[in-house]
């Protein structure tokens, strides 16, 4: 208890309990099958609850799990038994809101998979090796979305990259309509 608050894992599952993106920081689940078994247990335990307006909480296998659902996405943050529940909830809220900002409000599985790079970067910015890096959704999203170009880049390359970025923007817009 005298130690730093720590996060054991962050899970983003779909409405059938399949992985969209997960990140484990502790060695409690050493193999992929152990991880999958844990995800299945968490999913089944929380499936029937209504965690859409407020984050919910459960205990499983000596862990505290806070979770929140939106559309067909289930967000989970796991911590140790003695962890301050409100710290876990803050991390969950940071992740949840940052994903919302990055996906511009269209938070569902399809959008999340199409922007999986953003989701993975987002996870990377929230927790580093179990230690909380940042919990403010705006800061997290800001760090992930800084797709501007290196100031030191030569002018020619810069224009090309920018052109590509713009093209990409147009493409996704037209696809989404």
């Amino acid at each position, binding site marked *: *208890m*005298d*130690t*730093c*608050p720590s996060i054991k894992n962050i899970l983003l599952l779909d409405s059938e309990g399949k*992985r969209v*993106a*997960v990140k484990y920081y502790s060695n409690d689940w050493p193999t*992929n099958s152990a*991880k*999958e078994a844990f995800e299945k247990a968490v999913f089944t335990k929380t499936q029937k*609850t*209504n965690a859409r307006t*407020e*984050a*919910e*909480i*459960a*205990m499983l296998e000596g862990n505290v799990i*806070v979770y929140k659902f939106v559309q067909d996405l289930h967000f989970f943050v796991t911590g140790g038994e003695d962890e*301050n*529940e*409100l*710290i*876990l*909830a*803050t991390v969950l809220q940071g992740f949840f809101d940052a994903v919302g900002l990055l996906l511009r409000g269209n938070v569902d*599985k*399809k959008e999340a*998979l*199409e922007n*999986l*790079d953003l989701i*993975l*970067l987002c996870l*990377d910015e929230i927790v*580093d*090796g179990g*230690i*909380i*890096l*940042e*919990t403010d959704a705006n800061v997290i999203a800001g*760090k992930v979305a*800084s*797709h*501007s*170009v*290196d*100031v*030191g*880049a*030569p002018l020619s*390359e*810069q224009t090309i*990259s920018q052109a*590509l970025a713009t093209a*990409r923007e147009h493409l996704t817009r037209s696809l989404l309509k």
Partner: protein
Amino acid sequence: MAQPLVKKDDDRDDEEYSPFLGIEKGAVLQEARVFNDPQLDPRRCSQVITKLLYLLNQGETFTKIEATEVFFAVTKLFQSRDIGLRRMVYLMIKELSPSADEVIIVTSSLMKDMTSKTDMYRANAIRVLCRITDGTLLTQIERYLKQAIVDKNPVVASAALVSGIHLLETTPEIVKRWSNEVQEAVQSRAALVQFHALALLHQIRQNDRLAVSKLVTSLTRGTVRSPLAQCLLIRYTTQVIREAATTQTGDRPFYDFLESCLRHKAEMVIFEAARAITELNGVTNRELTPAITVLQLFLSSSKPVLRFAAVRTLNKVAMTHPMAVTNCNIDMESLISDQNRSIATLAITTLLKTGNESSVDRLMKQITNFMSDIADEFKIVVVEAIRSLCLKFPLKYRSLMNFLSNILREEGGFEYKKAIVDSIVILIRDIPDAKENGLLHLCEFIEDCEFTYLSTQILHFLGTEGPKTSDPSKYIRYIYNRVHLENATVRAAAVSTLAKFGAMVDALKPRVFVLLRRCLYDGDDEVRDRATLYLNTVGSDGEVIETDKVVKDFLFGSLDIPLANIETSLKNYEPAEQPFDINSVPKEVKTQPLAEKKAPGKKPAGLGAPPSGPPSTVDAYEKLLSSIPEFSDFGKLFKSSAPVELTEAETEYAVNVVKHIFDRHVVFQYNCTNTIPEQLLENVTVIVDASEAEEFAEVASKPLRSLPYDSPGQIFGAFEKPEGVPAVGKFSNMLRFIVKEVDPTTGDVEDDGVEDEYQLEDLEVVAADYVMKVGVSNFRNAWESIGPDFERVDEYGLGPRESLAEAVSAVISLLGMQPCEGTEVVANNSRSHTCLLSGVFIGNVKVLVRLQFGIDGPKEVAMKLAVRSEDDNVSDMIHEIVASG
């Protein structure tokens, strides 16, 4: 059959489009070749990395070769200046966790990024490099890391600090050199930098209590910006409080700080502080009140996480301070119907702990509605809470017992059913009024019980309790039904139970015998054997005669020998003419050798431990003693004491002694070790002066021919004493020997020796040496079966003691008896304690002791000692031990 399946898949694809549909590792690895293109397409490359990361995230693994290839390809991407792509490259490198020789390839690129002007590059490069690096590389980049810690960009500073926390585990000596920079970062205006700096600083200094205390003192006065840092500070503060509490008295230091945190604006800080206060050692009600008040507010929060956190903490408080939580009962009751089942269960169990007699019925009604839709693990928690509630309010047993029997009938797993059965059994034992009712509930349960273990347990319990009820005959039907309907294990248990009824209740004997005779035709060996045994021993003619007490004891008496001892004895038993004698099995409960309190710091095993085995095992002693012809006619060894040191640690000769008690003799076994390499001792004897031990007379001694350096040897001395009498006395000991010089290099021994003596400490034989640790399985039953004929009760003042626990353990070790039912453990902060001890006095007299302790303000401990035994003198003797101790 295949056709529709495919179609279904197609349908799903339409509605659930995924960019990764049909993705294949091989194909993606092929795609990764674009990383090698001279004209890099950053977008394309990002996509490929995302695909690779997706595969890894789904649990796909790369072979060593594949991983190496991908790694080398990815390193090429450092050429691109696209920030988005670079971010993906960082992620990929971390995921691949390259080997040491691969790390070298990217080191220079990452070090370049670490010194880049772009903050994002610096921060990420630090995290990546510290993740994959080893100690040798760290010294090269240490300078940059120290700079980064105090970087004005908070992201960079945090990245360096967090990396520092990770590196502290592998290369602490390097990270510890950064403490000046970290100290500076603690003062940072950026909230999270402060949090990370504080965490790292504390971890650097965690073994230095003074430094931690100073850190806490300065920070609790200053301003901490981040709620997370404030939580950390609360944790460190409680650590300081805990360590200070043992030395200081009066007002608790830093309590005011914790209390002020209850008014912080961030909920996580308020909660952390409230929880910290409830967990303080020996927290007073006055200290608790403000924490309970904020937790009570959380109970009615709209956020489930907040309610859960509060109710979980209050639940823990209710275990030690139930009265402090009663104020929250109304809020708690509204949580029984909470959507979140975890919250509801915690609320229920808290209420059961804090509830009063009048609210029991109402509570039970609410719980009944809710039991059906919670998981088994929660049900067990509820059952356990109800059990303790019932013991607290025995008058309410009727409604609680009904509740238990109702849930026993419902569906449930083994652990749950076992918890219910255990609860009913405990209630029957402790509340006499509940007995008949409870037994019938159990009878009904075994009529339809799918768990063999529970059936046999209940049958055994019925056999013990059933015959003592007013109408034992009504249980027979339930028991005999088992003989018809169940598997062999349960049938055998039922036969034993029937026989018990027959043996205990004479009126039922003829009828029980008729039933037992039918069991002789059972298909199972064990069932038939048991029936035959009982028919032949309990009295085969079916006459109404009282069964012999000896037979009863043989068949149904409790086995007062530890099972582990029987097991070793049976393993040692060699098939021979002589049958196995159960009386030869040692009854002493084996314990770990304890270091004598008088000699702190000594090696617990004792230097002179006999080479034949660990010093405390009775078997080893018995074997050793029986191999010495002089002691062969002493009879059976009653007890061997733990080794008592007779010399200080680190002296020339180390001697300890083990006291072996026989019925008419005492044998001292001196374990001697010579610790001087230049000496050889010969004709070593112990001269024992028994002038202060009048009842003892020396009959034999067995000296040691020679005692070379560092090879322990034993000397024995035997004394005769009056039979069966716990004679006590003091013996002074002198080691006498001939010293011969030895050349330690060659091992040559000089021919001439000098006679010398060495004074040893005195040795005492005390009354506790005549008491053997023998546990009983059920103290209450044993206590009642001995009866009050030779009960002796008296009160003693033990004077000022450090704590109740210390007083209890002192009396236990004084008496040398076995604590029963875990009563040797004293709950934290309790003002009174009851301790149950059992043992066997020499002459095979069973002794039970009930100790009641109380402590008042200035640590004065008083004790009431009640002794029951089968012998008047023995009861008095126990009192004498305490009175003189």
